[in-house]
């Protein structure tokens, strides 16, 4: 599929993307760039990837018609149940794919960054599965607020290294992972979202594309049409959203809605709504939209949700924003919490805090009664119970 939403040969989506990396990283990135497309396209990879997704992850993930939620909003809402995947989020689609690529490249040591800890857990899981060594970088602040995932990673045999610089969150964990990669060029950096230098955003997008690939036939079965009217997903780096949008980007009649974290309010100074607050800039080797001050210093973001607490977005999202192909909305901490309580009470599903942001735009949208809306339920809320309970009491 050649389209406007595929990167060019240097990894650009319009003006965004590329590989803005120090020479120290050039050979590491080049090795992946030279091989990833070929590996992913190979029959051996496809067989193993598909079989692991089916029998290990539990795919296809159900497309569930949320009857009571639909009733409340007077429309037809389907939930793409990525929360039911093994390890509890969409992140494992990507880690299964990348671990197979790593193995093909002969790598034995894996590193990753994590925010919410979902990607860290998904990485530690596939490393255990393949018998590979695993080191996960995680911001000190996130280690505290996502403690259950830290325990899971450790039980899975991963080493969790606290990132103590900057805001001590996802951005800083990514910095530390990249610095470690510079010093250990033979490790494989298993990146967790559609961010980083080319080819990482494209590689991760291809591996998450399975979400919308399944949506097509599931919707056909359930509604008689492959295309929904609207797809809603939350955006941290943007991988679950890209996965849910991927096979619909060229279908202009499908409305794509990306939801960012507005923290205490978009303009409160405590927010992670990158598209609203950012400008063109470079972060983690990619040209994208970035929250920065007048002198190009990266601004520390804020969100209650560790997985959305990131001052950039993937380059494809920056392009979707500029071209208006996707509509960018946002939800505050408070709105996300309310949406999480709502889904829990009327559908019996406790969503991840990240996912709750996608749900939180429902009251802000006006729906037609025949509209088919898919919300990508990117993860489950077990890891966030402490936060939920604390705020429920308040």
């Amino acid at each position, binding site marked *: 599929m050649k389209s406007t939403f595929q990167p060019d040969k240097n990894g650009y989506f319009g003006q965004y993307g590329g*590989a803005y990396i120090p020479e*120290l990283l050039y*050979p590491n990135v080049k090795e992946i760039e030279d091989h990833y497309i070929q590996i992913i396209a190979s029959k051996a990879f496809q067989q193993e990837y598909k079989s692991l997704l089916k029998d290990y992850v539990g795919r296809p993930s159900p497309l569930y018609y949320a009857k009571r939620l639909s009733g409340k909003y007077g429309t037809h809402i389907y939930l793409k149940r990525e929360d039911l995947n093994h390890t509890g989020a969409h992140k494992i689609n990507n880690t299964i794919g990348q671990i197979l690529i790593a193995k093909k490249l002969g790598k034995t040591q894996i590193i990753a960054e994590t925010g919410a800890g979902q990607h860290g857990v998904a990485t530690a899981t596939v490393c255990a599965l393949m018998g590979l060594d695993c080191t996960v970088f995680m911001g000190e602040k996130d280690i505290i607020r996502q403690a259950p995932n830290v325990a899971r990673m450790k039980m899975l045999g991963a080493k969790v290294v606290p990132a103590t610089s*900057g805001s001590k969150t996802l951005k800083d964990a990514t*910095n530390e992972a990249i*610095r470690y990669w510079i010093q250990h060029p033979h490790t494989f950096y298993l990146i967790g979202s559609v961010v980083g230098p080319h080819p990482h955003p494209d590689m991760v997008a291809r591996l998450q594309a399975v979400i919308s690939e399944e949506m097509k036939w599931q919707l056909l079965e359930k509604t008689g049409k492959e295309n929904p009217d609207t797809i809603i997903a939350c955006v941290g780096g943007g991988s679950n959203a890209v996965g849910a949008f991927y096979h619909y980007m060229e279908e202009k009649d499908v409305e794509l809605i990306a939801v960012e974290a507005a923290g205490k309010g978009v303009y409160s100074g405590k927010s992670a709504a990158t598209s609203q607050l950012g400008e063109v800039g470079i972060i983690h*080797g990619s040209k994208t939209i970035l929250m920065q001050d*007048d*002198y190009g210093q*990266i601004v520390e973001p804020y969100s209650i949700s560790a997985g959305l607490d990131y001052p950039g977005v993937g380059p494809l999202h920056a392009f979707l924003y500029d071209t208006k192909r996707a509509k960018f909305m946002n939800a505050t901490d408070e709105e996300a919490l309310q949406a999480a309580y709502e889904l829990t009470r009327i559908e019996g599903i406790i969503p991840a805090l990240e996912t709750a942001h996608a749900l939180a735009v429902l009251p802000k949208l006006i729906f037609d009664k025949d509209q088919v809306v898919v919300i990508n339920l990117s993860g489950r809320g077990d890891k966030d119970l402490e936060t939920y309970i604390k705020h429920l009491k308040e």
Partner: protein
Amino acid sequence: MSLIASILKKKSSNVLSIYFTSGFPELNDTTKVIEVLSKSGVDFIEVGLPYSDPLADGPTIQDSSQKALKNGMNLDLVFDQLMRIKTTNTTPLVLMGYLNQILKYGEDKFCQRMTDCGIDTLIIPDLPMLVYEEHHRELFKRYGINHVFLITPLTTDERIRKIDSYTESFIYMVASNTTTGAKSNISKQQIDYFKRIESMRLRSPLIIGFGISNHHTFIEVCKYANGAIIGSAFIQFLKVNGVKKIPEFIQNITRSVY
């Protein structure tokens, strides 16, 4: 010819360059540090432009950058400071900063202010060669600015040759696969790499940096290159001992060399 190139023409061995972060330890120390370094006989000075997320830097330079930013350092201020010593300073300066700062400031404005300060050499560690070829080569040429490329033990010969052909000042030879940070020894593996590059007989002078920290490591790497850059070890010294003691640090590095 760039100012650095003319220095390197006159002196082809044991060239000593010091990197420091502007606005560190105190906001107005930038010019003082340059003055003292200059008097101490340093051959050229790298002025670091503090950045919030310096990917190629280890903890020491990360910390000095954070401190400088807290002190209120920014590009306008650093150019104001450097402008003030333009006529008195006799040691060539090189600027080192990350691409995002320069993009946000405005690339033309950056180049203009830099040349106004009499500086003609720039290191942007995260400027990819591809983007340089498509855009910055032309831009820098208009302002008479030379960009310094880094090479590492994993840079291919083909790429090194290309870098050599683009270079008008020196090639920054990263001593090992590391971020910046002081180390006390040079390994056999590093020496093999230095020898391999030496045997390529490049047209550009080679200056080795990252991990050079003391007299011993300085002398050792100078056997294989025209000189070396010391950064983190200097910053650590400066943090503990202050600006006045800088000459001690430099004498300690160079000792019997002169």
